[in-house]
């Protein structure tokens, strides 16, 4: 072996050790101020499309187990799929300028999620540790589905008592000190779990250490205000199914314009209308009218 190969092996060895440390999350801190997000670094150059993450996810979530035999994979991976109400994560295969690339797709766990802002009952919640979870007080209005730029939440249309289904970053497992089901079974460490700060650093480190290997961009670092699933890629992200037109504005900020105007209208409209009603009143000889000008209630009860 020559010196370059030796250094490569040593380098990747150190990286794996450092990475292995990052694979195990520290015990989650009980609500201390500044509890940081956790997330997953998805390195698409390491993904081999084995779909074991799909199986692992289904197993820990009690979902139907997908058939991930080689022959089935060949067929399944022919066309890009979406997540469904029975599959929280899926692998898609893209033919690119660098050959076939396999990409895991699941909830991005945005820093400021549109689905959370849209939910009228806080069934969709962003936990302090970053997980975006769904709860059963949901009314099924499906506005979260409309508000997600990644089209992740899925509704169980076939059921009389439907839920909204999506990856929740294995919230329950996390609280028991376990890794997400997908991360645990990935054979190539394409998935790395850690705090967002850690995985962002690791992503940047990999790009800096391998300049020819990666596009110099981490998808999810700033997109839609930042997400907790961060992606590395060997090719421009549009080639592997990512939209590059989502902007960096956190999605909830698209509705703040209206929500911030609400209190003003609630104050100004009644004032203006009372003023107009008062102003258009004939002052002379309309005693009955004045009586009816007085409010005794607003019909709120």
């Amino acid at each position: 072996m020559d010196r370059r190969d030796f250094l490569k092996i040593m380098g990747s060895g150190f990286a794996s050790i450092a990475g292995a440390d990052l694979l195990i999350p520290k015990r989650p801190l009980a609500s201390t101020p500044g509890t940081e997000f956790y997330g997953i670094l998805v390195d698409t150059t390491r993904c081999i499309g084995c779909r074991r993450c799909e199986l692992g996810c289904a197993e820990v979530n009690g979902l139907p187990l997908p058939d991930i035999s080689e022959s089935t994979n060949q067929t399944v991976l022919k066309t890009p799929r979406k997540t469904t109400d029975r599959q929280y994560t899926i692998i898609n295969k893209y033919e690119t300028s660098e050959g076939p690339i396999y990409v895991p797709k699941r909830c991005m766990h945005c820093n400021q999620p549109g689905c959370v802002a849209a939910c009228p009952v806080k069934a969709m919640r962003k936990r302090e540790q970053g997980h975006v979870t769904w709860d059963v007080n949901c009314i099924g209005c499906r506005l979260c589905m409309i508000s997600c730029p990644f089209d992740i939440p899925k509704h169980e249309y076939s059921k009389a008592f439907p839920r909204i289904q999506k990856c929740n970053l294995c919230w329950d497992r996390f609280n028991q000190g376990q890794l997400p089901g997908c991360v645990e079974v990935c054979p190539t460490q394409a998935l790395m779990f850690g705090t967002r700060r850690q995985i962002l650093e690791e992503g940047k480190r990999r790009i800096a250490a391998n300049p020819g290997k990666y596009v110099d961009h981490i998808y999810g670092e700033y997109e839609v205000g930042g997400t907790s699933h961060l992606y590395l890629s060997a090719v421009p992200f549009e080639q592997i199914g990512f939209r590059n037109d989502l902007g960096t504005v956190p999605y909830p900020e698209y509705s703040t314009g209206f929500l911030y105007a609400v209190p003003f209208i609630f104050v100004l409209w009644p004032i203006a209308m009372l003023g107009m009603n008062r102003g258009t009143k004939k002052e002379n000889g309309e005693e009955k009218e004045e009586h009816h000008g007085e409010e005794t209630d607003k019909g709120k009860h």
Partner: protein
Amino acid sequence: MNELFTYHDMFSSKGPEYIIIIIFLIIIIGFWAFVNMNAKR
């Protein structure tokens, strides 16, 4: 830059805002009676 790593609810003030609005709408009833008080009888 901290919002890239921790969660801050940008809507945390909406609850108190709505309560203030409700109080305003209740007070305005009395205020309106007050405004009309100097009307000729």
